[in-house]
């Protein structure tokens, strides 16, 4: 039993050491500090808090995009949000592209920290050329918005 534990500790130590060394030496290594914000920054997006989202929504040139499905969007979304489901990007993007191209800042959101669709959408937009920190992820998403008792809209998006 003692031998098994010692071997196990050695495997964990070797794996950790190799992982940290490989990450430090690779050009696209993951930032070890800074969590999600640092990871998003490396991908060309920034992470926004609720306060920042509320501030930027009052500035001209800001567009907010809901990355969830159209069914979820219909049930409730942040007022004036566009809908571009990350799972069905191309047709929905085509509908809203003119508005996005004019935007100075595009804020994307989904169902909060446990949903990945806002990050997927942010990556799609960055791949389309929306770079230079024009894309921001509202990580707390709709649950964060609703926790602050902010209004939501219902219904479909009509471009």
């Amino acid at each position: 039993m003692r031998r098994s534990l010692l071997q196990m500790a050695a495997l964990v130590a070797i794996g950790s050491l190799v992982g940290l060394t490989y990450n430090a030496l690779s050009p696209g290594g993951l930032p070890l500090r800074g969590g999600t914000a640092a990871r998003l920054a490396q991908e060309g997006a920034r992470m926004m808090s609720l306060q920042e989202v509320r501030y930027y929504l009052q500035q001209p040139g800001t567009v907010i995009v809901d990355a969830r499905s159209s069914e979820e969007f219909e049930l409730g979304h942040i007022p004036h949000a566009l809908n571009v489901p990350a799972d069905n990007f191309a047709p929905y993007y085509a509908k809203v592209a003119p508005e996005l191209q004019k935007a100075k800042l595009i804020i994307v959101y989904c169902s909060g920290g446990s949903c990945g669709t806002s990050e997927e959408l942010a990556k799609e937009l960055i791949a389309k050329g929306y770079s230079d920190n024009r894309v921001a992820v509202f990580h707390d998403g709709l649950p964060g918005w609703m926790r602050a008792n902010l209004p939501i809209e219902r219904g479909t998006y009509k471009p």
Partner: protein
Amino acid sequence: MIWAERFARWAVAGIFLAAAVPKILNPSGFAADISHYAMLPDGLVNPLAVILPWIEAVMGLALLSGFSAEGGIVLANLLLVTFLAAMGQAWFRGLDINCGCFGHSGARGEILLSILRDFGFLAVALAALGLRYRRNKTGKVPA
């Protein structure tokens, strides 16, 4: 019996090596998958995404080669139980996430299938562990 233990051990090695490679190649995607479980403090997510795939890879190589295989099979069982607990809490909380087990796919709604699959992997890993200790007891492997 020796070959049964070897096959079980090699099967577990194959599973962990297949799981490690895509995560090593895309640490950012794996970090995103870990963060969607909403279990860990944000500051621990990136370091874990960097080291966990390499622990899996080193352990897989140990199981394949037989060097430190005993510790490797104990570790494999512990990791599988941990993964099952993580996925179980996600399923219980109704999180619509990708398990991230074999790399970042973006697909969602498959957590229950991943749990069932991991129970299968755990059965193989437990068999390898049991057979290993049986070999040790009967003295066919130097203690």
